[in-house]
């Protein structure tokens, strides 16, 4: 069994973290470029290889049509859900997309979970390199306001990346976990999480009990179409209009130039968090230059409506928790966008207290995921997370009206039962439509699944089928049906309205075999190197001992040569060669091992009475 990690699969950046037992703290794992942030960018090269993170981000400037960012905005969504996104982001949606969106990268087509899987696979690789051991399980964070389809898509991505997803944890809850550990805070805490593409607000109660600390989420709310990305888009739109007016250049036709401009503007946005003004300069496709000075006031004017949009969910979350803003004993800021002075100011004004910003807002979610991973993995139980489902679960009834089954902010796992019967004689099926959302009409809610309960032909009303809806600890729906006449339990085939079914996932797993092979090779190299290390150590020990000293010169030379050959192979990436040279060294040391064994046996026997042997 391999290692378990915590992963923050973010809109803009993703991170992987682990629980360091030596320091008793969670820690983020750095990648090959030294940073713990892996840009959530994926690029498909012309030769078919996939680049993820920093190299992919660079390709945005050279091969924009082969590169994708902010794919999280598409997770678990249908075409009609992302019309706004499509106006703002250069997603190249495949025209053959059905319920699940498909995106073009060069000549190939991928679903959002497949693209997210590339990011997860990259992070898994970072961790494997760091540990020198395989990683096969993970806790992955999701925005608290993610619906069932978005959660399922995230879990599918994990599966496609070769990870067993032990749990999906809500991002603000993960942040609270990392933060609570840091501060040993008790009482009411609000977590304001404005990330790259999503906004979440959660109200938690931190309780000390005899068994340990409980992190109980009282309520959560948010907007899964709102984040720092929107500020970038607003700046970009302003700059594009200016370029059109001043230079007469239509930038949209030049994907790479748009990305260059975006990059420069994002840098300017970051600079404006600490400075009052900053200059932007970029070369245009026609050779001319576009230059402009941005002031913090201008940026804040664009930011204001975005911050304003976060206040609705904040108020709703407090109302649902039956709390007033002043009752919060701490306010925690999460997400890169909370570095902006305006956001901090507005949150401080609303809650009447200075928000906490001492933990790195980029890392805190991944750190919390690592804490939860350790809780699940080690069974050390002095912390317990009680999270909630963000959206009400309902069923469509007569006239398209929703009957609520499990209300929002119910602690998960949560369940509800309902009994169904037939309305006409010899009816053989009852159609159940499950939705998620707060609206009265099913058509205004998110369709989760439609399924048919099969019943044998009988007079109307004679059939009695009890359906159990269960939201698990990851916030994902499961459905069970029981025939109350026979007591027979049936699993219900729930075809997710906007998700991948098992057959599709199996197919994708097969298709991704080429990438899995890269993975497999990496893992094999790691394992072979570890084995080589231990046999080399054993050989050295043997040679230094009595058995080694009694060897003939020729044999010593043979062993030394085999050791040198193995060391050389360990420097490369060919695990088969490493294995072959391990075998060669084993062969060369056969005599040595035998005489070592004899001596050990001898020593053991010598120290004991005859009767003990």
């Amino acid at each position, binding site marked *: 069994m391999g290692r378990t990690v915590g992963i923050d699969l973010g809109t803009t950046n993703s991170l992987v973290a682990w629980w360091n037992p030596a320091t008793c703290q969670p820690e983020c794992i750095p990648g090959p470029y030294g940073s713990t942030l892996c840009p959530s960018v994926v690029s498909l090269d012309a030769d078919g290889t996939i680049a993820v993170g920093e190299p992919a981000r660079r390709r945005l400037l050279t091969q924009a049509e082969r590169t994708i960012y902010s794919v999280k905005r598409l997770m678990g969504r249908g075409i009609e859900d992302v019309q706004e996104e499509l106006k703002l982001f250069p997603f190249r949606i495949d025209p053959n997309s059905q319920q699940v969106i498909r995106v073009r990268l060069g000549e190939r087509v991928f679903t959002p979970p497949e693209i997210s899987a590339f990011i997860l696979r990259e992070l898994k690789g970072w961790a494997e390199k760091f540990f020198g051991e395989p990683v096969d399980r993970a806790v992955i964070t999701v925005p608290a306001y993610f619906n069932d389809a978005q959660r399922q898509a995230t879990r599918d991505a994990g599966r496609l990346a070769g990870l067993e997803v032990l749990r999906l944890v809500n991002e603000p809850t993960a942040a609270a976990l990392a933060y609570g550990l840091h501060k040993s805070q008790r009482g009411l805490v609000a977590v304001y999480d404005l990330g790259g593409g999503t906004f979440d607000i959660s109200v938690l109660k931190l*309780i000390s*009990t005899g*068994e340990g600390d*409980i992190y109980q989420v009282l309520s959560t709310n948010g907007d899964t179409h709102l984040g720092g990305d929107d500020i970038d888009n607003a700046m970009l739109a302003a700059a594009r209009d200016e370029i059109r007016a001043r230079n007469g250049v239509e930038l949209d036709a030049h994907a790479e130039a748009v990305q260059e401009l975006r990059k420069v503007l994002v840098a300017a946005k970051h600079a404006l968090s600490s400075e009052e003004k900053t200059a932007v300069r970029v070369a245009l496709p026609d050779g001319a230059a576009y230059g402009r000075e941005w002031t913090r006031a201008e940026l804040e004017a664009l930011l204001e409506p975005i911050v304003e949009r976060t206040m609705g969910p904040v108020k709703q979350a407090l109302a649902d928790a039956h709390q007033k803003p002043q009752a919060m004993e701490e306010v925690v800021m999460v997400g890169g966008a909370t570095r902006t002075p305006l956001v901090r100011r507005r949150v401080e004004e609303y809650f009447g207290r200075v928000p906490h910003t001492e933990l790195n807002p980029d890392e805190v979610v991944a750190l919390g995921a690592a804490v939860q991973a350790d809780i699940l993995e080690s069974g050390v139980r002095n912390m*317990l997370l009680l999270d909630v489902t963000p959206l009400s679960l309902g069923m469509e009834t007569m006239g398209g009206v929703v009957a609520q089954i499990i209300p929002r902010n*119910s602690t998960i796992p*949560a*369940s*509800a039962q309902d009994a169904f019967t037939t309305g006409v004689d010899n009816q053989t099926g009852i159609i159940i439509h499950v939705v998620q959302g707060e609206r009265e009409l099913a058509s205004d809610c998110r369709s989760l699944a439609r399924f048919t309960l099969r019943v044998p032909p009988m007079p109307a009303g004679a059939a009695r089928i009890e359906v159990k809806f269960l939201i698990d*600890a990851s916030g994902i729906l499961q459905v069970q049906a029981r025939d109350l006449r026979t007591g027979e339990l049936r699993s219900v085939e729930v075809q997710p309205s906007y998700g991948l079914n098992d057959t599709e996932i199996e197919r994708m797993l097969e298709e991704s075999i080429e990438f899995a092979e890269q993975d497999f090779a990496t893992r094999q190299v790691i394992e072979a190197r570890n084995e080589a290390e231990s046999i080399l150590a054993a050989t050295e020990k043997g040679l230094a001992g009595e058995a080694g000293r009694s060897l003939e010169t020729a044999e010593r030379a043979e062993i030394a040569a085999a050791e040198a050959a193995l060391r050389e192979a360990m420097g490369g990436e060919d695990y088969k060669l490493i294995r072959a040279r391990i075998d060669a060294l084993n062969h060369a040391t056969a005599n040595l091992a035998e005489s070592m064994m004899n001596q050990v046996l001898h020593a053991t026997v010598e120290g004991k009475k005859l009767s003990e042997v």
Partner: protein
Amino acid sequence: MNAIHTETASTCWSCGAPAAGEHFCPKCGTIQKLPRGTDHFRFLGLPRKLWIAMDDLEARFHQLSWKLHPDNFVRATVEERDLSLERGSQLNDAYRALRDPVARVEYLLAIEGMRKEGATKQQAPPELLEEVFELNESLDELRSSREGNQHGAEMTALLRRLEEAAHGFEARLKDVDEQLMAAARQWDATVDSGDAATGRAALARMNEILNRRSYIRNLVRGVNEELSK
């Protein structure tokens, strides 16, 4: 929801030791199957009474959460994982249903077979008929004056009348809640005394009060929505 028939699993599914109604087998410590129809009161180890001390309820909830939450069973067998999901979700369902006084009464009525969802809710209680009639007239008047874009003194008076009516109904809600409390105390007394007939009467009364309560609440909500437009 149906009336409850409790089939008690009398032996541990794992080791066969006697384990009646416990969350965990007293002998081998394995999480136990949940007998179908175990009600929330029994699940939390509470009598079927409506008066519940909130701090005691919360303490029971937390204590059982430590033991039953699926977090504890990530490395357990599939059977145990399923059982923790089942017991863990019922724990949360039980806490949700019992911590709110009105939801608690609704739940009790359901498990006592006294509550039929939506059967009588939409009928106006007789003693309110006249007031409801007047209120609806004022609401119609408000809507039509809005369509005609009318303003001025007449509109102000109409709005004031509606606000007063809403306040009046809100005050009635308080009365209704007191009546509910009285009936609840009556029920709790019969749990101790075993007086089944009086108990049924108390349940019937609570059912009728709840219908009235939800009718008035909807009314108040409707008026407030119309006023906030």
